[in-house]
């Protein structure tokens, strides 16, 4: 850590001004991305007249909702000190299975023609089952989370392609899309849902013992175990919750796009990690807040939107987007003042 070499305190620290300062400093780190976000907004307003319009801002939020859910899921896993790469495949396969269950065989479904409500429930169950499977392999079998979930990513991607024979699924009941299409106060329900999910997760992480247990496990699993936290159980639970959240993310993505292609969610995990790390979630575990993760998502959403508005040729957009992520990581490193190890 960079700040262990701070000059030694000559007097014993007295609670008071110094403690107020440390609290303030911690808050400041939490808000590290807000100035960058504001700067980007100003930049956007200057560069393009249509940037700062209500319609455009809402479209940024709508486009970011699915990503936000997956970043939330990944952040929980990262704070616990583990990885879950397979979340991006869950984004594809969970809603796809739901769709296959409702669609008639003529529309390349399985012909079971489930009622829509049951199919929506099935989407969440698929997410939970995949999360539980990952969790068992990592927690009980003590396999390396990175490589296990990487394998799962490939397996699930393959299953999705196999089950749909590579075709795009569409024509699902309206309820599959309604989260993205219905609005409340002009803002899509998907955005409200993501916002609520972040608020709840942030609250639990801050004010519930289970939430604090995630930090304890990620920070020092042995100490957590010694404090009586059921480390294995909590970790397993985190994988399940992450799977469910990612499947909701998949549903939001389906609504936003209006169909499920065989590569829904593909390569999303890189953006997810970038958003989480830019937002101050440590890959080492035990560090980061939901607010930080959310600012990471919004930052990337704004950048994406700006690039589109600036009419950057689509062939170059990826290179520029990647470059901006790199720069954002460097800025986050400088502003938080600590190594992102």
């Amino acid at each position, binding site marked *: *850590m960079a*700040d*262990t070499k*701070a000059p*030694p305190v000559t007097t*014993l*620290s*007295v*609670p008071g001004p*110094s*403690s107020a300062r*440390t*609290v303030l400093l*911690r808050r400041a780190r939490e808000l590290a991305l807000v100035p960058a976000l504001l700067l980007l907004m100003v930049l956007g307003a200057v560069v393009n007249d249509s940037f700062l319009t209500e319609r455009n801002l809402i479209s940024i939020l709508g486009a970011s909702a699915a990503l936000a859910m997956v970043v939330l899921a990944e952040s929980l896993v990262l704070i616990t000190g583990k990885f879950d790469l397979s979340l991006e495949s869950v984004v594809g396969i969970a809603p796809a299975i739901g769709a296959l269950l409702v669609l008639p065989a003529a529309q390349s479904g399985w012909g079971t023609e489930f009622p829509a409500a049951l199919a929506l429930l099935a989407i969440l169950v698929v997410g939970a089952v995949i999360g539980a499977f990952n969790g068992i392999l990592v927690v009980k079998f003590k396999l390396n989370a990175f490589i296990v979930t990487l394998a799962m990513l490939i397996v699930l991607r393959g299953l999705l392609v196999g089950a749909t024979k590579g075709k795009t699924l569409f024509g699902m009941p309206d309820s599959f899309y309604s989260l993205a299409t219905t609005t409340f106060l002009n803002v899509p329900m998907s955005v409200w849902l993501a916002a609520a999910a972040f608020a709840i997760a942030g609250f639990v992480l*801050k*004010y*519930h*013992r289970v939430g*604090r*247990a995630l*930090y*304890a496990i*990620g*920070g*020092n699993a*042995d*100490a*957590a175990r*010694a*404090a*009586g*936290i059921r480390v294995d159980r909590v970790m397993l639970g985190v994988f399940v919750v992450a799977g469910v959240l990612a499947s909701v993310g998949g549903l939001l993505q389906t609504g936003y796009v209006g169909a499920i292609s065989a590569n829904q969610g593909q390569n999303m995990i890189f953006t997810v990690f970038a958003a989480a790390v830019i937002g101050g979630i440590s890959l080492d575990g*035990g*560090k980061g807040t939901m607010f930080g993760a959310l600012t990471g998502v919004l930052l990337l959403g704004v950048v994406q939107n700006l690039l589109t508005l600036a009419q950057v040729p689509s062939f170059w957009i990826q290179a520029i987007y990647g470059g901006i992520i790199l720069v954002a990581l460097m800025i986050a490193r400088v502003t938080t003042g600590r190594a992102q190890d």
Partner: protein
Amino acid sequence: MSTAVTTPLVEASGIVKRYGPTTALADGRLTVLPGESHALVGRNGAGKSTLVTVLTGLQAPDEGTVRFDGEPAPPLADRDAWRSKVACVYQKPTVVPELTVAENLFINRQPLQRGFISWRRLKAQATELLDAWDVRVDPEARTADLKVEDRQMVEIARALSFGARFIVLDEPTAQLDNREIERLFTRMRSLQDSGVTFLFISHHLQEVYEVCQTVTVLRDARWITTAPVADLPRTALVEAMAGESIETIAEQGVQERVVDESAPVLLDARGLTSDAYENVDLTVRRGEVVGLAGSSGSGKIELAESLTGLHTPQRGTAQLDGKPLPFGDVTAALKAGVGCVPRDRHVQGLVVGMTIGDNATLSVLDRLGRYGFVGTDRKRGFATELIERLDIHTEGPEQPVSDLSGGNAQKVVMARALASDPQLLVLINPTAGVDVKSKESLLARVDSAREDGTAVLVVSDELDDLRRCDRVLVLFHGRVAAEYPAGWRDHELIASIEGVDHG
């Protein structure tokens, strides 16, 4: 032992603990009276840590009983019951670095309000707890930012808040400087006045005399004695730790060696200073074997590692054969003619997945081919030669190094150190964890290196390793405290290592 008036707070008797074929503790005994500070001393491997794991309920003994306040110890699974009796502050922190002090004190038992954590009450409770035991640490501070001494006090306070009044301190002074040690002792004494009992483990005997009232000595996995500190003079304590029998062996084992005083000085280090040691001068002549002794925090390993490029001194110079020896660069040190057996073969010594041949030739690959390519036959031949030279028992250079026993694996590490025909050979714990025969064979390599005119530096906790040296330097808290020519007696050296002859 104790007069039967007070029930001992902790009483362990006849503790036996085996790990597979090795017996870590053959006869562990400990009786701690309430309100005292009790020292537990013994050389490395005497069974101190094993006794602590049994006392803290982390492992069940194979035989023997532990009683608290006269009552049998709770079952192993009942962590809460153990926590309310005993706690251990280890060298390795058992706190979560990113959380605040307050939260670390109450992990998983944070005060709740309608099912959710009340941070206000958490802070209040933490402040109250810290004040009650006079621990002056900001409860809002990030635990990672604390100094070691404060972190220890936080861990002690946490243990006390569970109701434990028996605290094991496992080498608490190892990472502290002198002033911090004094402060720790002051706090220990005031806690003792408030009714806390300590079991104090330290390698520094003068600390035992400073803060403890009673001392228990373990040696070779057995209980040797328990006595009031005041009744046990330092020489008697050192003798109890070293064992009288060893001394007699020592007298016969050490023959005077003829040191060629005219041999040119090969290694000449001046004023070496870093975090771990201070202003050390070190010279080694051609064909001379110099030992470095000291306790675990003495800086001896860092000093040796400085010469091999693994540790970078802040100040000072070193010359090898008249040419300056670069610091902090292993490749350059190798080029300059330094061969090294690093401190831990599992960590720095061997690449476990590779073969014996690959491991032995790892540092000399540039000699076995051109432009970075390695000639397979030449490598094979070179490795076979090394295997024969060091008498490594193996099927051949193709065998994975993970198949080897500890002794043979260590020979591979030694082979690699010798492969480059070094001028200076630095051996750190060269015989750690090897059997007697391999040990002899490894030490024989030291003798033949000496005959070849190599300068050898041996860093070790093992007296047997040091006995072969022409002279032994003792480091204490980073300074050279004493120098012994060959022929020293065991208790002299141990007293010097433990800091009792000059503390």
